[in-house]
């Protein structure tokens, strides 16, 4: 088994064997098959994987924002500063959301309420969690808009979302999320829906504010380049499980899971300039509807041997602060 980093008091969030199921018309889908990871105070953890691998479900499970009728966390623990979030009552959970753990969503175009001004929406977060009066909260909203570098914040607080561009709306989302200086910020693909030119700016902004406020960040992305630039540690997910986790330096130096290696080969490398054709990982992401025997990556894996199709590998330490879920990690890492 993977050694749990007994870091003690600097562990902010400790997720243990988290299992979340979706209930669809055609049965139960195990969207998260028991995942474990930690986030330490002030660090940036990257969560990487293809779409549908369970990254967003992990984020929504932590904040307990899953759609009530169709999804449920059925097992595991989510220890935040030692308290299991899954055991809290709904009112206790509301005190944590937006105040101690905040979240930024992927779609800035649809994630802001169209009928309230952006100032109102930021001020609301402040007023829910502090005893601030409305004018104090609005002043804080203005200050936050300035902090996320929106020009002319005095005027912009009174704007409606439809009067802003996508990049500006995402800045508003960041302002809203950080208004109560949370200890953990979950950013779910915060730049995917934006223009390429804006993406870097937004990312830099998040990192800068994180530094200033001492907030830990869980950055969900499908882009390994982003992870390399911004994160200290990273978790690689595939089909509802964690297949590899390591420090970013180690992950890029010694990718130990065949899936991680595949991801790296298919990512464009800016140092090498334009490449003619990126190698793809053959095959498709498996449907989680049918139970998978063995390693879920085996059907697409160039290293797969018979055991891979029979037994599911669990995360094993392959180095200091580096674990992978692969039967053949020794051979893979050497390849």
């Amino acid at each position, binding site marked *: 088994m993977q050694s749990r980093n007994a870091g003690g008091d600097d562990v902010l969030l400790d997720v243990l064997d988290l299992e979340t199921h979706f209930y669809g018309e055609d049965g139960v889908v195990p969207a998260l098959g028991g995942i474990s990871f930690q986030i330490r105070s002030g660090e940036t953890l990257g969560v990487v994987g293809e779409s549908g691998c369970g990254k967003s479900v992990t984020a929504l499970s932590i*904040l307990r*924002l899953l759609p009530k*009728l169709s999804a449920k966390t059925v097992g595991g623990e989510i220890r935040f500063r030692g308290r299991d979030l899954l055991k809290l009552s709904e009112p206790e959970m*509301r*005190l*944590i*959301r*937006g*105040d101690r753990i*905040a*979240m930024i*969503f992927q*779609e800035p175009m*649809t*994630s*802001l*309420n*169209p*009928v*309230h001004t952006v100032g109102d929406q930021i001020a*609301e*977060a402040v007023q*829910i*969690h502090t005893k601030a009066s409305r004018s104090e909260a609005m002043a804080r909203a203005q200050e936050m808009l300035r902090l996320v570098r929106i020009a002319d914040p005095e005027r912009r607080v009174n704007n*409606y979302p*439809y009067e802003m561009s996508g990049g500006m709306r995402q800045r508003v*989302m960041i302002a*809203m*999320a950080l208004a109560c200086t949370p200890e953990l910020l979950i950013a779910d693909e915060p730049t995917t829906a934006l223009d390429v030119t804006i993406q870097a700016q937004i990312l830099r902004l998040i990192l800068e504010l994180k530094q200033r406020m001492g907030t830990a960040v869980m950055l969900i992305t499908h882009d390994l380049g982003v992870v390399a630039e911004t994160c200290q540690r990273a978790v690689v997910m595939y089909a509802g499980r964690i297949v590899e986790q390591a420090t970013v330096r180690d992950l890029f130096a010694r990718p130990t899971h065949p899936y991680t290696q595949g991801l790296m080969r298919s990512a464009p490398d800016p140092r090498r300039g334009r490449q003619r054709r990126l190698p793809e990982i053959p095959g498709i992401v498996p449907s989680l509807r049918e139970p998978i025997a063995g390693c879920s990556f085996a059907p697409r894996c160039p290293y797969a041997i018979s055991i891979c199709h029979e037994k599911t590998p669990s995360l094993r330490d392959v180095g200091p602060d580096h674990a992978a879920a692969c039967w053949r990690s020794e051979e893979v890492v050497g390849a």
Partner: protein
Amino acid sequence: MVAYIIRRFVSAITVMVMVGVFIFLLLRLSPGDPAAVIAGDSAPPELIAGIRQQLGLGDPLPIQFVLWAKSILSGNFGTSIFTGRPVLQLVLQRLEPTISLSVLTIIFSSATGIAFGTLAAWRAGALVDRALSAFAALAFSVPVFVVGYLLIYCFAISKHWLPVQGYEPVEHGLATWFAHLILPTVTLGLGYIALIARITRASMLEVLAEDYMRTAAAKGASSFSMLFHHALKNAGVPILTVIGLGFAYLISGVVITETVFNIPGVGRLTVDAINNRDYPVIQGVLILASGLYVMINLVVDLSYTLIDPRIRY
């Protein structure tokens, strides 16, 4: 914006002209002599001849229409056969009970309907939702007079909690005024509540699935704030629309409710006019009610900008 308001006004006026043409043709094209209908069954021939002169019945139809429309626009809705008094004056005299009943019903039905619809959407699929759906189907189907007599039987005859019927003007005291209006309001409001609740539920279901509702939850907003601060305003346009369209239902209901509860309002005036074959009164009420309906829907259309800032015409 101004252009939109003008356009909307023009279309409201077009609709009113259509209504006018229709009401006008109703009398002219019906079998029998329009002058005789307006003069009443036992009118002397001289009177009928006078009215024929006044209506210009010898002239071609378009000229008759212009004459007729002119007199309507100048507030002359004709004279009641039965009482011999101007129709407009009769209607104005009966206005207080009708307005009391209608305004109370709109307030009561909107509040209850929106609350029920919101609750049903929030607990979609649960027992409350099913119970409210069943209630809506029932409230939609039971005629106003059946509801009225059931309520009278239960709350005024079996238990003497509320007055059986009648109306007390506001100046006789707010409490008695209100007590006399409770049963009529509930009677008239049930169908309207069902209508508003159905639309609210459907509209809220759509809004609750939006991304910004998840954002609100991630801020730590309470369920109450999520529903009423974040969702309801977004779901507002269809709800407001149905409240406006349902006003036609309300007008028909008022006539029956006033009869059931013996309230001396415009509805009773209309029913008395049926019994007395007093056509000028019926025509006057028809024009005024349709005009009110068109105006209310004009106001509803223009008020969309107040609830949704994105709507800029």
